[in-house]
């Protein structure tokens, strides 16, 4: 399951979707909205996605991870819209035969999502706002 959603994420549902009887480990990453950035109070974040491409990019990332770590199951859900501090922005759940593979696959997937999936967030502070550009620059190589 890959989902880009404007509704609050049901974390348990993402975990249940990833779970598999063939797995000895389910690893879950939950990304949440912080209440301060660089000592500034965050009022809310505004997320937006190029949804169809975001789903396609996440699918490619999952395919690579599934192959590399022999995943038994997986699910990713990412919020868009207005999120307040404490809300869940992204959930990645993977099921693997052993815990080591589950940790590595989960980290790989969230790192790749942050690096190359077309999703953006704007931080709205007391008295200002800013698009976030914290991730490393995207570099596209010729084929």
């Amino acid at each position, binding site marked *: 399951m890959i989902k880009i959603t404007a509704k609050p994420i049901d974390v348990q549902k993402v975990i249940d979707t990833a779970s598999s009887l063939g797995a000895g480990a389910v690893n879950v990453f939950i990304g949440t909205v912080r209440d301060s950035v660089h000592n500034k109070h965050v009022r809310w974040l505004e997320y*937006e996605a190029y949804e169809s491409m975001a789903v396609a990019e996440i699918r490619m990332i999952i395919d690579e991870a599934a192959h590399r770590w022999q995943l038994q199951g997986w699910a990713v859900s990412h919020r868009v819209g207005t999120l307040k501090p404490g809300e869940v922005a992204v959930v990645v759940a993977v099921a693997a035969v052993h815990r080591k593979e589950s940790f590595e696959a989960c980290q790989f997937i*969230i790192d790749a999502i942050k690096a190359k999936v*077309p999703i953006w967030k704007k931080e709205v502070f007391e008295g200002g706002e800013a698009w976030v550009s914290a991730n490393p620059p995207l570099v596209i190589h010729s084929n």
Partner: protein
Amino acid sequence: MMNLKVFGVARDIMGGGEIALTDSIHSVGELKALLLNRYPKLKELNSLVIAVNQKYASDEVSVAETDEIAVIPPVSGG
């Protein structure tokens, strides 16, 4: 007429989420050069990437009016 989907900070800089170009453009490289020239503030971003038909495209990729073309500023999901 070439229609661009524009996201994030690029949308603020270019003044809309859907931009129509009447210029004759044949490649991603030409498109980027035109955009950087027309919207100089785009040069301040730490990356600017074009997606063609929902795939990131390097400069030599050709583009046509029938393609789905998107302007991708630095991503910040997660």
